[in-house]
């Protein structure tokens, strides 16, 4: 019996992702890469077994907040949970946008400090985090967790850029901060997922891919091979994100 030659590299039986916490539409002007057209992003998600995603707009993060957030709001549906963005370089505009987002039923606001070249001790960060928390919004935060933990204390946060190099720092602050969670995107060492689960609980881990800019299969592959039971894997693959974002559909 003959068939197609078997590829030496294959990823089979990966867990389905019911909600990816880190997806973007739009483009970066300062680097090569995809333009982040929404249709292409949806196709990439489908190709990677990702049923739904928390999606934010680079147009909002880099250029114009209201029109970018409106662009994402228009994508809302079974596969897209819109996430607002604010510009930390404009804290006065950001506080207005937080109110507008909350009034429109948005569940989360994403912070882009690296892209906006905002440092953790800038007053804007603490102020916007407080206003978002008062409005009942979850924060999805870029930036180095070792520095951005301080202005985000007391909030419900998903740190999107936690690298396994900094895992110990995340764990010791998460012990004191019940609202601190982390994306799995850069937790790609042999025991990082297991360490978070053992130290602060698997409910703090949320699958994040950063589609279309990162390979979505990598954190999915890592999760598939994690020393976690099926219930825990399902929680990481979307259950935890659905819980903290209040997504019931």
């Amino acid at each position, binding site marked *: 019996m003959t068939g197609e030659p078997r590829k030496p590299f294959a990823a089979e039986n990966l867990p389905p992702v019911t909600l990816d916490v880190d997806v973007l539409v739009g483009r970066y002007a300062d680097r090569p890469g995809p333009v982040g057209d929404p249709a292409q992003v949806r196709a990439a998600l489908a190709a990677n077994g990702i049923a739904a995603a928390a999606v934010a707009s680079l147009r909002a993060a880099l250029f114009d907040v209201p029109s970018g957030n409106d662009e994402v709001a228009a994508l809302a549906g079974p596969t897209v949970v819109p996430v607002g963005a604010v510009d930390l370089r404009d804290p006065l505009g950001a506080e207005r946008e937080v109110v507008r987002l909350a009034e429109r039923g948005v569940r989360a606001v994403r912070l882009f400090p690296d892209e906006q070249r905002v440092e953790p001790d800038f007053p804007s960060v603490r102020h916007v985090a407080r206003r978002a928390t008062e409005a009942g919004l979850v924060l999805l935060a870029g930036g180095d967790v070792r520095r951005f933990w301080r202005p985000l204390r007391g909030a419900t946060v998903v740190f999107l850029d936690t690298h396994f190099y900094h895992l110990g720092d995340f764990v010791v602050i998460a012990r004191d901060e019940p609202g601190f969670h982390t994306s799995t995107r850069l937790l*790609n060492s*042999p*025991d*990082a997922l297991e360490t978070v689960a053992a130290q602060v609980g698997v409910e703090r881990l949320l699958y994040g891919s950063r589609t279309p800019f990162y390979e979505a299969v*990598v*954190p999915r592959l*890592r999760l598939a*091979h994690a020393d976690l039971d099926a219930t825990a894997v399902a929680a990481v693959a979307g259950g935890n994100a659905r819980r903290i974002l209040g997504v019931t559909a």
Partner: protein
Amino acid sequence: MIIDVHAHWGPWFFSMEVGQVATNLAVMDRYGIDLAVVSATEAVIYDVAAGNRAMARVLAEHDRLLGYLTINPRRLDDAERDLRELLPTGRFVGVKIHTDYTGSPVTSPQTREALALVAAHDLPALVHTWGPTPLDLAQACADIPGLRAIAGHMGADGWRHAVEAANSVDRLWLEPCFSHTEAGRFAAVAAAVNPRRLLFGTDATLIDPAAAYGAVVAADLDPELGELVAWRNAAELFRLDLGTD
């Protein structure tokens, strides 16, 4: 068959427990990796002589691991002694040079001298590269007769430089491991360089093989190129007798 050409044995200074040989074997099993070429983290980060000897003891007991003898370019006397004493074990198949931990860029006189020593022993050298430094390694290949070098991480975020580097000489190989898995990175490199210059490396047990393995999966290589990347190119470069065709 999959051969990982960039792996380590030993502990790291981060919050992780990955220093046992059992961890090497476990992560290899996770992804169907048959053989891994490993260097001792102690040799890479701190004490090259002690680390190489500890590595030799591990290699003597584990057939699925092959060794890189680590050279610190600042300790060339150690290098010459280690090559003389440890190569006869037959378990070391290449040399590892980490430019950052030794404060020795590829362009430094000591690293150039180390690479010449490696070439004189007719061994492949896995050299840490980042950003534009694959171009420096390509220049070393051009300048040092017989040098065969692997650009570790294929320049990481500088992979476009790695493409240029690999296309400028015929003795430079690329392997993809990097904890940041930019979409399309390996596919772009695979489409732009000689397929005989592509290898598979993971940086385990610092990085889980998921990162490199997933990057290669995402590139959706045809089966023939997949086999070159998985093991055929590595077997040829390291002159391994695998008992295959």
